[in-house]
């Protein structure tokens, strides 16, 4: 290719020939795209990944903030509707717990704001302030204090739909790192001998780091662990 062109820097014809060959390259690329388009995936896709579609508050138009914005994810944000106000109950580490009336479509952070904001002992990481609410829900904001172990649960929600009720309730599971022998014996399949073995294990080798570590305890095998799993926790 190079030998056929005039090597002088200012050659007009070389420049024109370059341009023509360059356009030919583009045209060839275009022909390839035209010929092979849609061979693998049916239908063109001009989509752009990254944003997560949500609903625009003002007009109900679909909008898609970038994931980096921390905006709600796809399919997610419940669209605020102009219905009757919701009655919501909030307890725990907020400045003014109680029952509040908020516009439908509100989220947890709005309820927390209505309740005067998070208290000094509130654990903001443990409560999803962006979570959508529903009429009649009870939100409990957990505390950072170690003596109030809470594990939130959602009543009436499924994994695919917004929870109908958000309620953070006291955890009924036994923390194997702090429980006494009597408390350990309340776990299904754990008698006095196994309870003693659990305590021995944590005293000799330090706290359990995960529920699976219970397999190190003499008398607890995979089957027993599965039976215990729902009743124990590690903190």
């Amino acid at each position, binding site marked *: 290719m190079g030998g056929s062109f005039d090597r002088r820097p200012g050659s007009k014809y070389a420049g024109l020939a370059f341009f023509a060959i360059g356009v030919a390259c583009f045209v060839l690329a275009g022909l390839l795209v035209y010929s092979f388009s849609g061979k693998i995936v049916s239908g063109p896709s001009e989509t*752009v990944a990254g944003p997560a579609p949500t609903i625009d508050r003002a007009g109900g138009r679909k909008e898609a903030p970038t994931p980096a914005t921390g905006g709600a994810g796809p399919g997610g944000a419940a669209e605020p509707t102009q219905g009757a106000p919701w009655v919501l109950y909030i307890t725990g580490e907020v400045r003014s717990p109680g029952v509040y009336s908020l516009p439908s479509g509100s989220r947890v952070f709005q309820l927390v704001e209505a309740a005067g904001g998070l208290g000094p002992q509130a654990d903001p*990481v443990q409560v999803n302030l962006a979570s959508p609410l529903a009429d009649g829900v009870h939100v409990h904001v957990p505390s950072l204090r170690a003596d109030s172990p809470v594990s939130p649960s959602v009543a009436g929600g499924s994994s695919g739909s917004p929870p109908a009720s958000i309620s953070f309730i006291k955890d009924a599971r036994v923390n194997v790192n702090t429980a006494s022998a009597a408390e350990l014996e309340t776990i299904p399949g754990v008698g006095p001998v196994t309870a003693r073995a659990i305590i021995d294990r944590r005293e000799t080798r330090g706290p359990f780091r995960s529920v699976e570590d219970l397999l190190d305890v003499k008398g607890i095998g995979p089957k027993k662990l599965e039976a215990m799993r729902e009743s124990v926790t590690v903190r």
Partner: protein
Amino acid sequence: MRREETDRQGVPFVPREGLARAPLVFPLAGLSVSLASVNRGIPAVVAALLAPLVVAGLVLVLSERRPPRLLPYAGGLALMSFIVSIFCCTVLVRQPPLPEGTVSERGTVVLERSWGARRAVLVDAEADRYLLKLPPDRHVMEGDLLSFSGVARRIAPREGSSFREDLYWSARGARIEIEASSTSRGDGGPSLASWRTALRRRMLLTLPPRTRGYMLAAVLGVRDPDLDEAHRRWGTSHLLAVSGFHVGLVALGLWKILTSALVRTRVPRRVAVAAASLVLWGYALLAGGAPGALRAAIMLQLLLLGVALGRRGNALNSVAMAALFLLLWRPAWFFDVGWRLSVIAAMLLAALAERCLSIWTLPASSVLVWLAAYPQVAAVFGSVPLAGLLLNLVALPLFSALYPLAFFLSAPLLVGLPGGRLLASAAEGLFTLWEIAADSLAGLTPWTAGWNPVLAALGGGLFVLTVAGGLYPLRGRTVAGAGVFLLIAVLVL
């Protein structure tokens, strides 16, 4: 009048332009066309063939005269672009092997974010990085050790939605989703993710609201919903997404400190470069490893290496190299709007810096960046606030001072020093003043620009033309070459 110069062998001196100025811009253009094509269903091999054609086409239509060593340079770049493209296209279309039966694994949570009514969690397990979508009540935080079991499935695009969830998560390293039937959380021990969580908790608990929002965004890449909404209205959302602006601020501050230390203590230059690199990458990763932050970190790392080796790089070439590195790492970044905006803005500014960027041309460059970003932003968000045109002129210089100042004012409160609350209140006051000013300025231009193909074509055209102008002198040939490329790209893709 131009002086005719020759080198020692008597070969006429030709100013560095095109291939010699920023060679990697060409393979980046080729790879971009290949990836866009493979997303249209073109087989990976054919899509990869487009890259060398685009490289050759661009070199030829833009070169008014025969560049020195054309064949080895252009041929080498075309070959390189083919190899890079076939690798990236193959990685992009390859289906990951799916584990059979129930997957029971344990791993560290490296990302946790809202995902509709659920929380999306990325877990680095032994075998792979998995995506889990959990109900919001499961208190899984970054840095936790998560044990889970469930059925694995490939992340697929959702029917009836333009959002490509598969590409979004692929860019973040996950291609398999676990429909978890059971999960249990444990302490994951010290890790970058757990440090992020601890810092986040500390900021949430101690800092006043506005300062908290800005510090969370700048340090950890976490956005406050209210602040996010306000910045979207003002057209300054990029200030909240950790990008080249933030990484550049950190690098500049650090460099100033190190160079003054160099003068005083005679610290070897290479030691200073190593220390600066460490802090640079530490910050980019602490801030969540967003594409803009990573792109900027790679660029600045190249700059630092240049300083260490006593060589000066080309900004346009550095942007292209950083973009290529990210695509080689995870080709799905190409479809991420964050990656696109970051690369577009950086390339545009780098191209302008090659020619005419100065304090006087800054307003024009702000308009150019707005126009160049418009097709992407309008396609994704539906509209672009015009307030950004005005506010960015004020916001960028203001935040380059405000962010470091707010960081130093809030640090005492974060570490629990006496008097910290007073200093943090000062930062809060400054941010409140900014809010008032921004609202007033945004009130002057309350309009938004919806999707408009003519404006999008203008934005795209100006981008291509500016980058071409950064590579070659802006003459009729450059305009014609850029125009042909843009025309064919629009017609074909």
